[in-house]
């Protein structure tokens, strides 16, 4: 009987103990899998989100991420300069503004007796450039004319904003000491804003935002979004050369910065918990196997006396470890997937996280790491009981079994 089959029989002999060992490995294996997903999850998700906007480079005034620093002045001139570059396929200016929209109080619980509709705070993204825009249309169509807007799913669901609805929009404009009457805009589409922050988001053409500000908004943009014709780094260099006062950042550079700042905590957590879960699994399997070996020393000594080699009995112990960890590892995958969904939902509530981002993202190498780490754990966990078995004094053990 080969070592693996023998190990299987040994494990099945103690079904409760084996089942608990497998379940324990499954639980920690699920956590380990999730930590592996988390370690690269944010970066992978962010990369996907950045790519989905359809642009490769972000140009800002100070190199800070959009909404983090000063605006780019004379945005329309910058737009023309960049558009003329051969390295640039297309360019779009983007400006953010806060504002309020009035929503009919059909389901509101407050001010029900007041004629004024409640005004919810919204974030406005206004773009200047040709379609496609940095959002994805889910229903309806994209903006194509003045005073047309698109809204996100949360606005459609929570505020009951329907396609075709007219909303009074009051953005915060250039001068904060001015307050203009709201502008009525029409909702033409429900979209997904990959990188937007906030609950309620409105997208429009820059002209609509300018009109809502009475034509008084400045010719500024938070950022220029650029799609390169060829090599992204070459395009970034060309942009920097054309406007040395501005700071282009490729998607890769944006990711790099996020990795060093906001994402780093989760990567550290991932590393710490990966270590803890592996240590836990190691302890569990080592104790299980050691106790199992100690309870079977008589049998093992008898097998050695019968002629089974040291390598063979050691291999039996290693195979037991591999089987427990193997089955536990397989079971941990569906558990890990389910747990990842739950943890992702919790972490997505974190402020400052775009709605399209996820913390736990599946990548095939996570599976490879998971399997490799568990296999290594199985081997290391078996080392001590293997050593016990290898060094078992046959004659003394047989004698002790008789006299005990």
């Amino acid at each position, binding site marked *: 009987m080969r070592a693996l089959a023998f190990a299987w029989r040994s494990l099945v002999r103690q079904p*409760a*103990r084996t089942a*608990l*060992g497998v*379940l*324990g490995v499954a*639980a*920690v294996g*699920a*956590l380990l899998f999730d930590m592996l997903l988390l370690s690269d999850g944010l970066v992978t998700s962010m990369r996907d989100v950045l790519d989905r906007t359809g642009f490769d480079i972000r140009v800002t005034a100070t190199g800070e991420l959009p909404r983090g620093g*000063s605006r780019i002045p004379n945005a329309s001139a910058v737009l023309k300069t960049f558009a003329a570059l051969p390295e640039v396929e297309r360019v779009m200016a983007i400006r953010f503004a*806060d*504002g*309020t929209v*009035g929503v009919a109080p059909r389901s*509101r*619980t*407050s*001010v029900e007796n*007041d004629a*004024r509709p*409640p*005004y*919810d*705070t919204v974030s406005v993204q206004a773009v200047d450039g040709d379609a496609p825009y940095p959002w994805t249309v889910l229903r309806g169509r994209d903006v194509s004319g003045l005073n047309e807007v698109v809204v996100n799913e949360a606005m459609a669901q929570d505020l009951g904003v329907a396609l075709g609805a007219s909303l009074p929009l*009051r953005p*915060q404009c250039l*001068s*904060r*000491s*001015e*307050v203009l009457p*709201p502008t009525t805009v029409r909702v033409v589409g429900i979209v997904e804003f990959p990188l937007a922050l906030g*609950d309620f988001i409105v997208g429009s053409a820059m002209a609509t935002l300018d009109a809502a500000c009475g034509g008084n908004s400045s010719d500024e943009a938070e950022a220029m979004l650029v799609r390169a014709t060829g090599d992204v780094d070459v395009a970034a260099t060309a942009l920097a050369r054309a406007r040395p006062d501005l700071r282009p950042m490729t998607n890769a550079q944006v990711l790099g910065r996020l990795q*060093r*700042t*906001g*994402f*780093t*905590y989760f990567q*550290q957590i991932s590393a*710490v*918990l990966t270590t*803890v879960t592996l240590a*836990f699994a190691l*302890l*569990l399997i080592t*104790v*299980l196997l050691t*106790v*199992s070996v100690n*309870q079977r020393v008589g049998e093992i000594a008898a097998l050695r006396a019968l002629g089974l080699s040291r390598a063979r009995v050691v291999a039996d112990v290693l195979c037991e470890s591999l089987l427990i960890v193997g089955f536990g590892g397989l079971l941990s995958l569906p558990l890990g997937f389910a*747990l990842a969904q739950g*943890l992702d939902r*919790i*972490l997505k*509530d*974190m*402020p*400052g996280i775009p709605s399209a981002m996820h913390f736990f993202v599946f990548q095939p190498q996570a599976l490879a790491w998971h399997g490799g780490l568990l296999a290594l754990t199985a081997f290391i966990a078996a080392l001590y009981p293997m050593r016990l078995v290898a060094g078992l004094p046959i004659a003394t053990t047989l004698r002790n079994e008789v006299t005990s």
Partner: protein
Amino acid sequence: MAAPAVTAQEASLPTVLVSRQVAEELRITEGAVVQVAPPEGSRARQFRVAAIYEPTPDPARLGATIREVRLHLPDLLDLTRDPKAFLGTDRVEAVNIALVDAGDARAFARDVNARLPGVLARTTVDAAGGGPFRVLERFHLAIALVTIIAATVFLLALTIMLVDERRETVGVLRLIGLPTSRILAQLAVEGLFVAGAGAVVGLAMAAGSEQLINRFFQWRYDTALVFVHITPKVALQCVAIAVPLGVAATVVASWALLRRNALKLVRR
């Protein structure tokens, strides 16, 4: 390093607080005279550094270099005012409001938006989200729950093995007439001692690793954020979970053994 003696001229300057990170980067000491200007660089004014402070750590900005200074509000308003602004310096960026009932926050914000055009009111803490600390708390709790489940499984496996090692003893006790309840109580008491000792050792290990973890991450991120903090409440919670779990695992494992025929227990 002692602050240099302040001259009469310097003493008359308005004061500013400088964050530790800025002080280290620019080698500013307490009592130094610094120039602070708005982003465009003009209208710089001199201030005397009254103290160097540790900024409130924010997990959402972990890893970012915190560069901030704190001025008295009139000084800040004077520094950043728009000369063309109609209202002069009598304006602020934001007003924080604490409501009697925080559940009214969203409705209140909507109402203010409707009644005060030009003012943007938004809730500071989203009811569902709860801010970064709350989110992290929930995240850590979820991880802790999974760890407890795994630990319980481990504990059960261990107690089954430990109790099984005593099967012959248990079998003999049954054969000589001790009732099951007596043997179970004995094993439960043993489980209580082991679980109690384990909980104490666990707390000691946690206290040791608390220091290590905090020191490491505070160094790594140059922050005063406390990552692990074991309070008496947390310690009590851990003991309240661990000890009953340990005793329960012992009782479950023992019960499974005691249900078997006593003769089979003593037979090899």
